[in-house]
């Protein structure tokens, strides 16, 4: 029988020995790249091979037309398996980021969130009305529980925060006012800024961080475990059962917490005035009563429930947006806090203009 004799010198032989496994994938790949075409792969020396080794051999045969020899039936079988699972480059990668498309997606997403928030606001109003017309459906227990969680348990941290802010406002104010010899006006500064602005605002930020995030996380987790869906199928409205109690609690508790915050800040400022400026507490309290108009207190107490409403709205809304996977709970909780603090600051600015224009300066 005639055979075509190919001189061994014209063909490059790659003959790995021992194990051809994932542990040697790097060096095998380098050796294969270094070997020149035409290439023959001799697998007679290989005693162990896994799919990664088989893939490297398969790829070389596919891309460079290398020939194979000395492969045992097991190795051939494995090569077949790998070849069967070969789909070229079809697996694909996530698309590249396109800045314009990103901006567009972001804008649409923003508009959609805002629309969703409005829709949610409407659903909450309907819930309010239906609870008012059917008072039996009102969930007293849930509301009282929320009072405890949102209000009572926040007293400590809000009190401490406000006390310290009162001291800092007093101290910073005194440093500046002393330059004019007007340090007694520190009392005006402390009284008016804490009652009118800092009390409600700082309380809102603390409640957003403490309770707004908790609302989003609680409702979001219930969405994932399908508790919210279960409620709907049973006929319980999630808005009435989950959202309204939290919202009512936030609206009622916020002015109380804001008032507590004002008190603590005034006490902190008073302590500073007593120690730092040697103004006795009795004089301090008298001066506070003289310089802080009642309208300031009203401004603070009118703003607070609105802030509470916004915090509960954003928290519950983001919680309801959670879907599919647990990662969303974290994302939506963050979104709830950011959104509620942002909205609170925007509304606060609107209030400032409003109260100034009606003469409550």
């Amino acid at each position, binding site marked *: 029988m005639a055979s075509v004799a190919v001189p061994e010198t014209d063909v490059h032989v790659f003959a790995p020995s021992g194990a051809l496994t*994932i542990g040697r994938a*790097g060096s095998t790949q380098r050796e294969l790249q270094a070997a020149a075409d035409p290439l023959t792969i001799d697998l007679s020396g290989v005693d162990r091979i896994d799919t990664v080794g088989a893939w490297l051999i398969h790829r070389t045969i596919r891309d460079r037309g290398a020939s194979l020899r000395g492969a045992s039936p097991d190795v051939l079988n494995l090569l077949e398996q790998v070849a069967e699972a070969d789909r070229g480059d079809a697996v694909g990668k996530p698309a590249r980021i396109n800045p314009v498309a990103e901006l567009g997606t972001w804008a649409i997403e923003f508009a959609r969130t805002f629309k969703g928030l409005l829709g949610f606001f409407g659903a909450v109003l309907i819930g309010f009305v239906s609870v008012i017309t059917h008072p039996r459906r009102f969930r007293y227990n849930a509301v009282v529980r929320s009072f405890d969680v949102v209000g009572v348990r926040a007293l400590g941290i809000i009190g401490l925060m406000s006390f310290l802010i009162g001291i800092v406002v007093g101290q910073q104010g005194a440093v500046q006012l002393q330059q004019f010899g007007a340090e007694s006006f520190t009392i005006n500064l402390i009284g008016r800024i804490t009652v009118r602005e800092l009390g409600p605002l700082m309380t809102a930020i603390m409640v957003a961080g403490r309770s707004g995030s908790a609302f989003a996380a609680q409702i979001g987790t219930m969405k994932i475990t399908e508790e919210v869906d279960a409620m709907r199928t049973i006929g319980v409205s999630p808005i009435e059962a989950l959202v309204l109690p939290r919202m009512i609690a936030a609206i009622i508790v916020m002015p109380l917490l804001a008032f507590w915050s004002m008190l603590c800040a005034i006490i902190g400022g008073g302590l500073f005035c007593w120690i730092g400026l040697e103004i006795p507490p009795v004089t301090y309290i008298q001066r506070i009563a003289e310089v802080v108009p009642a309208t300031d207190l009203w401004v603070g107490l009118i703003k607070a429930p609105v802030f509470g409403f916004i915090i509960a709205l954003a928290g519950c809304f983001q919680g309801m947006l959670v879907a599919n996977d647990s990662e969303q709970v974290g994302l939506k909780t963050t979104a709830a806090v950011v959104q509620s603090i942002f909205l609170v600051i925007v509304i606060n600015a609107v209030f400032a203009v409003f109260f100034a224009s009606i003469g409550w300066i």
Partner: protein
Amino acid sequence: MSVLLPDGETPIIRVRGLENRFGDQIVHQDLDLDVRRGEIIGVVGGSGTGKSVLMRSIIGLQTPSAGSIEVLGENMVGRPEDEAKNIRRRWGILFQNGALFSTLTVAENVQVPIREYFPFIREPLLGEIAGYKIAMSGLPENAGAKYPSELSGGMRKRAGLARALALDPELLFLDEPTAGLDPIGAQAFDQLILGLQKRLDLTVFLITHDLDSLYAICDRVAVLADHKVIAVDTIDRLLQLEHPWIQEYFNGPRGRAAAA
């Protein structure tokens, strides 16, 4: 009857005197089990008999109160983390709901074990390996670029299987792989596991409640009851035992339907 292998044979998993207790509650007591190399062993038992706890003990997620566990000839109890790591790369685990990393795509999920153990393997080889593992698990071509939240339950299990196979394991642990799948999907998954086991020469440790799976693919079945493995054998021989739970399990209406 003995649940152990004959003396001449070295098991791939050897559990001796395993005891697991949580407070007063005893899950396992004096549990022995041998798993033969190259077999598909099914583990069955009523709810609360500790099937998952047994698997978690074997793979080292749960430290047993007493007893010894050897996997691939290595003792696993109280092993320092860096030594255990070398044994861990020789097995793959499919958790009940896939346990895919939700922030990564399917292809990236498959690459995680490879990156961890073989950091010198880089793109494009890394992508190619993930690609054929995904194809071997029976997922469609475009699945690699998707996130787990975009997949159906069955696809998520296949993606979990692809990740379990990432390092060409010798041993594959499957925790209720067909739970929550429709009968057609479950059957396809059974055949997939059977095919992979034959082709890749795997030993499969399968926890299941699916009688069809047991009949279709398991070489032997281990029965957990009374805090221990009461029997390990082929289903035919298990049926000849007098234990009431075994009789009820395999000879109940569902058991008979699956056998038919």
